[in-house]
């Protein structure tokens, strides 16, 4: 790898374009860490938000009116308020009201770290949208299928898990994909509560080396790359799950 690093160092000398996160050991190390923290944040929040979506959509079909109301309130809150303020509210506001726990060296630390708050609030934010998306998928499932499952003696949860959900997921996949892409793009709001993810690390690097322009474009392309990977994965999943007669026809 050393020749590559040297080439980039020399490239800086020749052109003034400073890609120090490639040739400088320290900057490279923190950039790799930041990049993978963003990946980790994205993967965890995607999984959690999909789970929230699946479970929430199931609860939306509940017979209890208060369960439906609470889910409705949850969705309406998270989709009508800014995600950044949600993060601030949880991290600064709720975080302060929670008790502090010993950190093992005699001091006290917050019960929930900034990374954990970022994961929680981003998952809830995207999860609220996912509930909506899964619900519209569920509505597209023919009633007769549910009735048939009931006739077979399936319980409500069994019907949901074995009959409704497999079809609903296929119908909802395009919209779900859009939302997950949005979620990956939103993970960098964690920057605001000092989670050392891609954008935060880049800011640290450009503050040290004053190469704002280079870092800015690198961050832009790094996120485009991550979104591209996710889109590829979703397209593959869509292809794999496709069942004749279900899902959006004439996709790209």
């Amino acid at each position, binding site marked *: 790898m050393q020749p590559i690093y040297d080439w980039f160092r020399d490239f800086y000398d020749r052109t003034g374009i400073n890609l120090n996160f490639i040739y400088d050991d320290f900057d490279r190390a923190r950039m790799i860490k930041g990049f993978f923290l963003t990946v980790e944040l994205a993967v965890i929040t995607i999984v959690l938000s999909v789970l929230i979506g699946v479970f929430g959509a199931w609860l939306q079909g509940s017979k209890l009116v208060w369960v439906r109301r609470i889910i409705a309130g949850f969705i309406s809150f998270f989709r009508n*308020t800014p995600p950044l303020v949600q993060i601030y509210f949880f991290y600064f*506001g709720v975080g302060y009201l929670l008790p502090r726990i010993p950190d093992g060296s005699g001091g006290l630390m917050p019960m929930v770290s900034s990374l954990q708050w970022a994961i929680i609030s981003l998952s809830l934010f995207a999860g609220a949208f996912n509930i909506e998306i899964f619900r519209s998928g569920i509505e597209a499932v023919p009633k007769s299928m549910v009735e048939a499952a009931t006739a077979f003696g399936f319980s409500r949860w069994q019907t949901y898990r074995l009959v409704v959900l497999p079809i609903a997921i296929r119908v909802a996949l395009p919209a779900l994909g859009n939302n997950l892409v949005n979620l990956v793009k939103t993970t960098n709001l964690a920057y605001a509560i000092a989670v050392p993810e891609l954008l935060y690390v880049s800011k640290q690097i450009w503050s040290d080396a004053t190469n704002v322009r280079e870092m800015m474009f690198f961050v832009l392309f790094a996120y485009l790359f991550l979104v591209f990977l996710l889109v590829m994965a979703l397209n593959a999943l869509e292809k794999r799950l496709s069942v004749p007669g279900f899902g959006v026809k004439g996709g790209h």
Partner: protein
Amino acid sequence: MLRFRDAFTPPSFRIAVPNDVAAGAPPRGIGCAGLFWPLLLVVVVGWSSYAMAQAAAAPKATVFEVLVRWAPLLLWGFFFNIIISLAAMGLGTVVGVPVGIGQISEYRLIRWPARVATQIFRNSPWLVLLFLCMFLIPFEFRFGDVRIPFPDWAKAILGFALPVMANTSEIVRGAVLSVPTGQWDGSSALGLTRRQTLYLVILPQCVKRMLPPWMNLYSLIAMSTVNASVVGVSEMVTLTGQAHAAEGSRPELLAPLYAFVLVCFYVYCYPIGKWTVALERKYGAKV
């Protein structure tokens, strides 16, 4: 060419069905959802007051007093957020509609740049685009002796207009493609040119289809304007931080102050969402 996901998924699957949470439930549920979160604010204020009473013996302003004292300033900040969002939406739409029409141009020299620009700005994080505009645009332009200052808020408007432009462009493209091809065939049978078909037949039909996703986009951009606080534009969240500092940075005040911000945005965006759904229903039936 990299083709990202299509913005214009069929109506029933579109994310642009906001707030329509209680479609399966009786309409009473919607009103209840509207009350739910303002009630949360009351709970949070109460809880914080309790925490405060526990924490301090010295007489300090209560949470309620603090909110009343700073509400005018914070609301002014909120007004600024709305101004930024309207300006960004206007600018983004004015640029985005031609770019969207460019995406379906017959000429490769127009089509490809329009597509590349749309995909890049649509798929990059809004915060990064904001940073890009904030840090890479100079604070003033000089033409000889004439200096034109370019303040923070103007850069922020540009930063928000970029994603609006790309998303509007995609909405236009999606809407045009969603018009049945029979319309194009019929127009050509009537002897209309491509341009005439587009402006006289296709686009007028698209307006109705574009309105709901476009309003949804506005709601999203209005909520994103708080991101400008990260780069120091003095909008509502920045002012909230300053108000908090002015009150002696008491940590128990943070929850109610941010809850106040949340409620303001909720009150502004919730009706927009309801309206979007209503329009979608109205136009959806005719399409």
